[in-house]
């Protein structure tokens, strides 16, 4: 695919590399600007990922194919993914207020950054004029390839740093575990405890112990905002998801009148039996205090 093209282009120093460089450079700068300028944090993360992908390509173009792939795997695949995870855990909608709160921070930062930029331009300008790249062809050939060459360096000259870095990684993993660990102060609620709690709440407040009724059951449509009908024909507001409840009041009312005719019909058919469902159960659905229903149970 394109990778071998890039590698080939880079080693030749041809217009292929020019093309690759300019494309990726522009994209990565766009990504970096996006990171700084986006208000939504997720966008920042995506822009960062874009920059990192492009940097990977630039690494490959710079005769560092192994590093480029590792960049994709480590940065794009793991680090940025971790960022996304954390973003989603802390709430993806957290967007930044752009008002500066630190007195003078922005002014001093801009001044310093300007100075920094000037310094960079001056130093780089003088340092880089007339430099020519040696190229890595010879260095890569020495051990039979880029990976082999890197491996040779890492496991001989840089063995100690490598070991230290490995220790650092393990320490970091443990540190993250410790930091993210939350002690459990209360026993874990298992299925039995949960159901017991539910029944206790039922006994105390009369809250319905079972799952909520599904929306639209026995109703005219199965849209999510449509309340279910109970066996006695009354609509159950509990079946509507909480965010839609208030909004769906009017719809609920309309629905109720619409089905009123059907309900009356059902009632007529069931004439003589009064109700198909004891009042007590309906009261439970409607959060009636249980004490009213079972007054003698109070003392227990």
């Amino acid at each position, binding site marked *: 695919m394109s990778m071998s093209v890039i590698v080939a282009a880079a080693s030749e120093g041809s217009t292929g590399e020019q093309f690759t460089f300019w494309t990726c450079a522009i994209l990565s700068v766009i990504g970096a600007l996006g990171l700084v300028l986006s208000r939504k944090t997720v966008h920042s993360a995506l822009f960062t990922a874009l920059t990192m992908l492009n940097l990977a390509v630039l690494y490959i173009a710079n005769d560092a194919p192994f590093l480029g*792939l590792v960049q994709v795997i480590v940065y794009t695949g*793991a680090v940025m993914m971790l960022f996304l995870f954390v973003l989603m855990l802390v709430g993806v909608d957290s967007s930044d207020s752009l008002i500066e709160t630190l007195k003078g921070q922005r002014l001093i930062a801009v001044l310093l950054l300007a100075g920094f930029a000037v310094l960079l331009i001056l130093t780089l300008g003088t340092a880089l004029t007339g430099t020519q790249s040696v190229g890595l062809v010879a260095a890569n050939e020495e051990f039979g390839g880029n990976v082999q060459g890197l491996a040779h360096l890492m496991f001989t000259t840089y063995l100690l740093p490598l070991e230290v870095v490995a220790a650092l990684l393990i320490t970091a993993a443990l540190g993250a575990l410790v930091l993210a660990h939350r002690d459990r102060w209360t026993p874990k609620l298992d299925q039995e405890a949960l159901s017991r709690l539910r029944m206790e709440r039922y006994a105390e407040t009369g809250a319905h112990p079972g799952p909520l009724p599904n929306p639209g059951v026995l109703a005219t449509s199965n849209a999510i905002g449509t309340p279910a009908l109970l066996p006695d024909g009354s609509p159950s507001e509990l079946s509507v998801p909480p965010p839609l409840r208030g909004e769906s009041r009017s719809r609920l009312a309309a629905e109720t009148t619409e089905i009123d005719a059907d309900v009356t019909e059902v009632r007529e058919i069931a004439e003589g039996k009064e109700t198909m469902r004891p009042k007590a159960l309906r009261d439970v659905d409607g959060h009636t205090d249980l004490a009213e229903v079972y007054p003698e149970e109070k003392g*227990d």
Partner: protein
Amino acid sequence: MPELSDFGNDPFWLVCLKTLGVFVILVVLVLFTIWAERRVVARMQMRIGPNRTGPFGLLQSLMDGFKLALKEEIIPVTAHRAVYWLAPLLSAITAFAAFAVIPFGPEVSIFGVITPLQLTDFPQSVLYVLAVASIGIYGLVLAGWSSGSTYPLLGGLRSSAQMISYEISMGLSFVAVFLYAGSMSTSQIVSSQQSLWFAVLLAPSFVIYVTAMVGETNRAPFDLPEAESELVGGFHTEYSSLKFAMFFLAEYINMVTVSSIATTLFLGGWMAPWPLSLIPGINSGWLPMLWWLAKTMLFIYLFIWLRGTLPRLRYDQFMAFGWRVLIPVSLLWIVLVSGLRAIREEMGDTSNTMLAVGAIILAVLLGLLLLATMRRTRVREPDIVEPTGPLSPQAGTFPVPPLPGQTFEYTPRSRQPVAGATTSGSQEEPDA
């Protein structure tokens, strides 16, 4: 056998042709896999499966694809448009891209140009597959997030967590192969298996890879991120029409990809299996594509078989398995392999010593395994008390139905008329 220097020399038209070929192969394989899955699972469940469209229902998947493309597209109001668009594209493109380095066969002559039957290859091509796979995960996460709905978000997070976790053990299972092949390029790995497949030589790596690849593709029994009964459909719940088709396509391409990687890395790629490989000339020309196809189909069948057989794991069990079993075992195995190789490098031809050491290590591991299983059998039997006698519905915990041997004791309340239950003054007993 193609060398690494054989790649990158193709004329432009041949590159286009090869790309097209890979695309076609993938699409056809996907269509076939969907059909095969439905038929095979149907057979396993004593059904017939699709058999109407085309011979043996072979065209069923194609027709499904058309239908899917023509369906109305619904985009949630809360969706984040740009990302919502981007996600399926990312999924599908990376799925296709990973296939670029899969070798289908040896060098053949196409319109007079001698070229390997492989789109491209370079010294780090297996890493490339891993890299592309890790980008593919973005498709899932972004799909879940951009849908603006809870189920897809949870599903997306779950899928990506799962895929990242299993990608680690997958990558680790490659290490032993790299060590033995001395290369990270797919074509070199295939050619280094001429004498012995790595599935035999590096059996633990193979087992780890096969397990990880099922987790990596979110397939049963590791399909919990898409558990229909829990999360509706996972990250793609809010997707419909062609975008959903793209996710679907990506999932099946990924199946084919991981199968063909298994083939390439462990089953000798396109080379003929052992007794057949003795026939001279069988590993040249276009014929080896057949072996490649057969081996890949074998893995695809394995996927289908697993799906038809195994129940779904719980999420925490699944993650615990990945982190506490697969990764440690992979690490141990890598240490073992590199240790053995180091011994061989240092001590020359001392295979007897190596074998002895290996045997001892194996014995120790087996002993540990035995101990572990023995410990597991020592789980205390729960005290089962046969309930007898009358049971009060409010006794002890929460109302339960009477078990066999129990009689239900009615509380006074259940016999009494319920207060306020009367609208017309009737005092009827609730039927018990």
